[in-house]
């Protein structure tokens, strides 16, 4: 075990740093910038049953210390992810990857996860439950403990891989959702997904984002994310993956002290393609500064 190594749901990681879904494509795009094998793993672009173009543009707006995106889960669909993206990834990344899955019905989730379960490259399934439930009046699965549990059970039934439920922060009690996922058999939870927000263009008097609202990410959300990771870590016994505005090695340590077993890095990858490599390189010195011998010591008993 190296000084930075850790374990996530029984699968070893060389370090706790994981680029978050939607900010790292299918990985091979970033292999043009650096050797991505330095990463713990990464979570690939949210994948759905069918191909999705996503939302109309503009999909992006800037905010103080962050950004808003309303990409709308653009992806080529699970069949092409397996046929085209994973073979390209295999050439440049030699570790298990985290497969991020979205759906608009419980059956969608099960369908996509069952297909990805057969892929050896996939080490974990990260299930994004922030999407609207088309059979549930359009309310997000992640805002209702029963719907979150239902998705968890459906996914667990079709895979032997660890299932990590990715939670929405746009709820009153995120710990209750996390607990519902744990009780339904989830192997871990990751949080937070983006916070709903918007901007208005003063010149046009219209929302900047064509879809009006989008998800806020970046350093602005870090304290909110940290607070939620703290709350959820105390509510569940399964591993918690912390994310939300993580930009530095110190942020990673803070997330782990809040209770995270591993840490995802999102928006930082978009402004600095080397962000994750830099954070990993900076970790040992940051640990020295705060008298942390190993990442494992922060992970506690999980």
């Amino acid at each position, binding site marked *: 075990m190296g000084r930075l190594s850790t374990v996530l749901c029984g699968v070893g990681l060389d370090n706790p740093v994981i680029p978050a879904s939607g900010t790292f494509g299918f990985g091979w795009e970033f292999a043009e910038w650096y050797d991505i094998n330095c990463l713990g793993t990464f979570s690939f672009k949210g994948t759905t049953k069918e191909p999705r173009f996503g939302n109309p543009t503009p999909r992006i707006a800037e*905010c103080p210390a962050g950004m808003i995106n309303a*990409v709308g889960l653009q992806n080529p669909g699970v069949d092409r992810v397996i046929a085209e993206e994973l073979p390209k990834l295999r050439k440049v990344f030699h570790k298990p990857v985290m497969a991020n899955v979205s759906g608009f019905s419980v059956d969608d989730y099960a369908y996509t996860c069952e297909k990805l379960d057969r892929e050896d490259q996939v080490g974990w399934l990260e299930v994004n439950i922030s999407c609207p439930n088309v059979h549930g009046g359009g309310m997000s699965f992640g805002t209702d403990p029963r719907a979150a549990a239902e998705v968890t059970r459906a996914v667990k039934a079709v895979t032997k891989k660890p299932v990590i439920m990715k939670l929405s922060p746009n709820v009153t009690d995120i710990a209750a959702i996390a607990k519902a996922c744990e009780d339904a058999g989830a192997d871990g939870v990751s949080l937070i997904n983006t916070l709903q927000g918007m901007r208005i263009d003063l010149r046009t008097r219209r929302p*900047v984002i064509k879809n009006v609202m989008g998800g806020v990410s970046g350093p602005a959300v870090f304290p909110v994310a940290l607070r939620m990771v703290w709350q959820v870590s105390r509510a569940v016994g399964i591993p918690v993956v912390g994310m939300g505005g993580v930009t530095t090695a110190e942020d990673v340590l803070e997330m782990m002290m809040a209770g995270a077993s591993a840490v995802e890095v999102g928006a930082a990858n978009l*402004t600095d393609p080397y962000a994750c490599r830099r954070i990993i390189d900076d970790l040992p010195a940051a640990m020295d500064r705060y008298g942390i011998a190993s990442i494992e010591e922060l992970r506690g008993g999980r």
Partner: protein
Amino acid sequence: MKQTILTIAENRPLTANVYRMALAAADLEEQRPGQFINLRLAGRFLRRPISVYDWEPGKVTIIYKAVGHGTEQLSRMKAGETLDALTGLGNGYDLSKAGERPLLLGGGVGVPPLYLLAKRLRAEGKAVTAVLGFNTKEEVFAEEEFTALGCEVTVTTADGSYGVKGFVTDALSEEYSFFYTCGPEPMLKAVYKATKTPGQFSFEERMGCGFGACMGCTCRTITGWKRICREGPVLDKEEILWAD
């Protein structure tokens, strides 16, 4: 694609709100016509994508309009200050399609990327015609620079205060082999309708990363979904699907 620290060599106004900035770095990679650089500004989360006006070994020049807080901040920066840049972004124009008499159509701050293109085409001995469109006389820039390259230059102004009155489409030459254009979307649509030959269009979109990671700037085309920052910003006329 490369991350480079650029040092500002000059930053001066060309018009009331259009600036010319030259940036230097010993390790600067070659910038091709139609590509862009993405600049990080202190206190701004997202980078600012700006098209390349000119490139020579060790030096890249941009011409940009101060339209928001970010570009206004950029306009106040001084020679000697540095900027973190991602360079060599986007596909750029395809020079092999030019033919012998290429026509360049630029509108406002859509003019700058056509300069390096014109320079390269002239170096290949092509007879280049450039039509540069502006709103009014006070906004005109780069005319002498295109002329100095040996291009046949026509300037149009919407109010007729300088050059030909009207839009670039009012000054289309009859004889050209292929066209390249960049400008505001209404102008691009007008060019699309007014031209009968193949050509290439450079598009703008709000971007998150500028290098293909976030899917923030995707558009539909005849040949599939394309990221403006990666498979664009230059699209062939035949593949364009207008959003609305």
